[in-house]
């Protein structure tokens, strides 16, 4: 039995539901001799800002027991102009779909970056990273405030006709108003979720393990949190959901599909297993064969009541 892996998301068809998680797959070409792009429906680049950001003081990564990691990269990136000048030519265009992650500290910055990227022909779409401090609102996460989310999505929507995904933070008192706001303003996919804020301490030296003290907690321990958010968002809105958080096996992917996801982002897993896309796709197809399912996309939202 051959399992059909294609998924449709609004105007776009992806070869497989697998995408890369922003920031874990660089500008798209760093892994090129190690990753099988055919197993990916698309890549999402590292988040790009209007100006270069140097990033946080080191150390920027540490491990936690139970398979977690915490990173404090600080959104280091070369800025949109540098990206267009130096990185566009190396993107895996034609090999897979390309989504550019965009970050800003205010509405205007998101719009500026997207407007510049509109000049580049081959971009399939954008993912707005809204899990960052809102400078004008005293540093609270933009993605936690449904009014701010609505404003950004509205302005960016007006600036582009391309596919638009919106990525949200797990730090949400209630997810429904935020996803409704994003969907209401024209988001075509919602990515859930970004990392949780976390911290680790070297007790022998009585020092934090990260230069920025706190960072983003990801990897397998994040999965239950992300799963709950995907499920809650799927209950609230009709737009496709891209799951992000702790996917390392095909069965993790199946869990997210059942909870309501259409796309599956592979993030930290690349740091452990560069062959993850092909392996995870195969494991999901094996699951489908065992259950007599012919299309991966048919699993989306098929969670049975208890």
């Amino acid at each position, binding site marked *: 039995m051959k399992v059909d892996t294609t998924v449709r998301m609004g105007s776009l068809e992806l070869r497989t539901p697998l995408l890369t998680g922003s920031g874990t797959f660089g500008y798209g070409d760093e892994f090129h001799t190690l990753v099988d792009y055919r197993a990916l429906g698309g890549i999402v680049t590292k988040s790009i800002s209007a100006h270069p950001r*140097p990033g946080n003081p080191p*150390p920027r990564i*540490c491990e936690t027991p139970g398979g977690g*990691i915490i990173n404090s990269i600080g959104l280091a990136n070369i800025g949109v102009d540098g990206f267009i000048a130096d990185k566009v030519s190396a993107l895996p265009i034609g090999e897979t779909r390309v989504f550019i992650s965009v970050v800003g500290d205010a509405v205007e910055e998101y719009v500026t970056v997207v407007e510049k990227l509109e000049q580049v022909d081959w971009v399939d779409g954008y993912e707005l990273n809204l899990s960052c401090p809102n400078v004008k609102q005293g540093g609270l996460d933009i993605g936690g405030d449904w009014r701010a989310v609505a404003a950004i999505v509205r302005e960016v929507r007006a600036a582009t006709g391309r596919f638009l995904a919106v990525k949200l933070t797990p730090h949400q008192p209630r997810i429904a108003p935020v996803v409704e706001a994003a969907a209401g303003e024209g988001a075509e996919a919602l990515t859930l979720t970004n990392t949780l804020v976390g911290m680790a301490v070297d007790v022998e030296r009585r020092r934090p393990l990260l230069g920025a003290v706190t960072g983003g907690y990801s990897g397998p321990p994040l999965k239950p949190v992300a799963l709950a958010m995907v499920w809650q968002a799927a209950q609230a809105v009709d737009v496709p959901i891209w799951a992000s958080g702790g996917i390392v096996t095909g069965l993790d992917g199946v869990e997210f599909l059942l909870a309501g996801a259409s796309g599956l982002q592979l993030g930290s897993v690349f740091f452990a297993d560069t062959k993850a896309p092909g392996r995870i796709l195969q494991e999901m197809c094996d699951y489908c064969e065992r259950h007599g399912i012919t299309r991966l996309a048919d699993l989306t939202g098929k969670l049975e009541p208890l």
Partner: protein
Amino acid sequence: MSPVAEMGIVEEQIEISEGVVELTVRAPEIAGLSRAGQFVHVRVSTGFDPFLRRPMSVGPCGDGRLKLIFAIRGRGTRLLAGKLPGNTVDMIGPLGRGFDHPEEGVIPLLVAGGIGVVPLLLLNEQLPVGLERDFLLGVRSRTVLTVTDSEIERRHISVATDDGSLGYRGDVVQLLARRLDELDGRKVNIYGCGPGPMLTFLKRLCQERSIPAQVSLEVPMGCGVGACQSCAVLKADRKGYLLVCQDGPVFDIDAVDLSPEALP
């Protein structure tokens, strides 16, 4: 840079001294491509805990084999030390930028601190046969040597120990300073790898005497290929960062900040 993913096979596992292990791994592709100073990113778990790969310098290699030589520090290196002949080692590599060989007429001085000897063992092999060189190694004491006695003899390695239990009594940078005096102004190029404090002293000495040096750095790392930007080190001018996995691990000593605050 075109790293490959290769499943190596352990052929031999020996303990060089207490807590220092040498694995001889059959991995023809990586062994054939590696330049001294480059590293492999090694998966230590068959699952996902511990999650990250461990960066390890490529040690002596040839004949389709490479040596990983490491100090047991935490969970990852303990798991790696448990690999026995016949076991597999999942690696990606060779990664990063290695050492540049010296120009003609320049004497390479290899200066290692502890387990930092590993990339220099490969450099020593890859330098042209017969080229005059000096190989210095500093360790705390002879009980924690990072190379075997027979290698020390065969490679003409000069040893410094903090406690004087073998060779020169003192640290390896002091030994280097003496050696430089003996060489009396001849053109040299220093190749260094070792713990933070050693690199701080080494940089000071190189600046005082205007000697060019390349050093290999060790910092916590994520992807190993330049994608995640986890392994940043501060530039010498403190304006921005370089990535150990991509811009290094070997840097010109003047390019990076090696002050104690920068190397926690």
